[in-house]
């Protein structure tokens, strides 16, 4: 097991290297140097002054040298400074990261506790009409734009105190209960799409498992239906569901960007949006890098969890991208 995790961890290095290349060079494509953006439109500089400024900021070197220097600083934990506030980027991100992660975790939790029971129930009631209705319901869940759902929630709960954060966000460490209460609606609007996906996978997987011989044997032994479904069927049917939930968790993190804006939650997504509106490229670069890294790590974690529950996976080393 340790060897499996080690190889998977090593395989992350080229991917993260590629991510850093994209994050660095895409920003370099923008017309105008970072320096010009920093100066904005208020300041005029002569060409000589510009050259001098470029030297001071270290922008006069070849772009490959700049990349290597940048990567070196990132690896040491120095993500640079905001062009707008002049503050170090990393502490700002780290102080906002917990909120975004909390949103993601609660959204995942809600998606699981809504999706799995729904999937099980719909797999047990099998007739053509409920079949079609279930599929349409599942697809409808996939079709709801998260930000619209969030807007409707704001609308519906605008007169109810405490459910909508709107400017008076309370930290979990200050008051866990009130914090959780105001995180539920934002998390729900992010998680509902995933709950539909989980519902569909649970249902498919249950239908497949329920046809198997050992289920018939269990029923024939006279075991209670509830025990057959939970102990025998669900235990095997849940495997693909874990993978799907895991690989989609990263997308929840992406969804948090929009939802934090709708609910005015001071998380990393909101920081990213303001950085984009203000063309604050060091902040944008850092956030994209952090989210992509988290995304890759969550996918790795999913692989590892999957291999823990299903020992067959470890035998063929990670060759499963069907």
């Amino acid at each position: 097991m340790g060897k499996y995790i080690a190889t998977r961890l090593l395989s992350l290095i080229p991917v993260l290297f590629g991510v850093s290349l994209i994050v660095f060079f895409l920003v370099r494509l923008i017309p105008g140097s970072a320096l010009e953006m920093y100066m904005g439109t208020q300041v005029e500089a002569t060409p000589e002054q510009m050259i001098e400024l470029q030297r001071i900021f270290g922008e006069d070197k070849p772009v490959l040298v700049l990349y290597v220097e940048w990567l070196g600083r990132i690896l040491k934990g120095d993500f640079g400074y905001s062009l707008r506030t002049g503050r170090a980027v990393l502490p700002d991100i780290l102080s906002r990261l917990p909120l975004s992660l909390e949103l993601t975790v609660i959204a995942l939790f809600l998606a699981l506790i809504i999706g799995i029971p729904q999937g099980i129930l719909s797999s047990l009631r099998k007739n053509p009409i409920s079949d079609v209705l279930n599929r349409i319901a599942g697809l409808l869940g996939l079709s709801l734009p998260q930000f619209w759902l969030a807007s409707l929630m704001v609308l519906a709960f605008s007169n109810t105190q405490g459910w909508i954060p709107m400017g008076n966000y309370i930290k979990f460490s200050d008051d866990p209960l009130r914090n959780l209460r105001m995180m539920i609606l934002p998390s729900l609007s992010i998680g509902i799409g995933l709950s539909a996906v989980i519902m569909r996978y649970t249902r498919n997987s249950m239908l497949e498992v329920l046809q198997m011989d050992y289920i018939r044997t269990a029923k024939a032994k006279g075991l209670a239906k509830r025990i057959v479904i939970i102990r025998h069927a669900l235990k095997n049917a849940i495997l693909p569901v874990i993978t799907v939930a895991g690989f989609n968790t990263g997308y929840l993190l992406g969804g948090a960007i929009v939802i934090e804006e709708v609910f005015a939650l001071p998380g990393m997504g909101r920081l990213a949006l303001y950085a984009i509106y203000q063309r604050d490229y060091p902040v944008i670069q850092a956030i994209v890098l952090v989210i992509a890294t988290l995304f890759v790590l969550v996918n790795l974690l999913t692989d590892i969890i999957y291999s823990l529950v299903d020992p067959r996976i470890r035998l063929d080393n990670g060759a499963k991208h069907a």
Partner: protein
Amino acid sequence: MKANRLTRNAIAMTGITIIALYLLVIFVSTFWLPFDPVEMDVDHLLEGPSLATGHLFGTDEFGRDILSRIMKGTSISLIISIAATALGAIVGTTMGTWAGYLGGLWDHWLMRVADVMFSFPSLLLAIFVMAILGEKTYNVIIAIGIVYIPQFARISRGAILTIKSSEFIKAARSNGASSTFILRKHLLPNILVPLIVQVSLSLSVAILLESSLSFLGLGVQPPAPSWGNMLSGARKVMVLAPWTAIYPGLAIVFLVLGFNLLGDGLRDILDPRLRNVR
């Protein structure tokens, strides 16, 4: 035979019906709209839906007719989604089929690039690309297209790999057919099924991505109406005028649902291996 199966498949037919209704709206809106979608009307700010005034879905904070804006926005959203999906499908499939067919170093590097692209959540990647290209309508097409390229590359490569070594390809090759000829005449037709399904599902996600970008102010720029930027404008006034937020959202939901139903249904119809697993 296939058409017959299509009519029997309620899911795909419901999807087609929904999409056809939207196409009808686009057709009608090129000739006629209830009101001018961008003209402001200060005498009718935030009026509720009513038959008497002719504003069936009400008016927004500038007095513009919401129904007209939704109708106009239909073609904007649909054109962006179709163009972005086409971009991703054409570039991605070309790259993926060549990679799968040729194998070797080209394949290796292409798939490493795809792995890197998959390390970004799609919405984040689209937002990042928009931040770099700037908020222009045609840039939305590029941003969403870029998100799709690795997806189509991976699917088409996988499909090519499964049929590359089959007898009829070997026969064609031993008859002296060129690689381009084999790819076009033999391989592409055989990987169309997964691609068609993917196109349908990609169209639905493209509409969601476009509306999310426009909602954040990074997509279609006002005053041009798109469902996403209508909802963005509605945020400030929706407590007073809920209809400004409800109708554009419903327009998104039903079109996305249409493409999802079509994609899901097509998968059943076209791919017999998957039919029993649903």
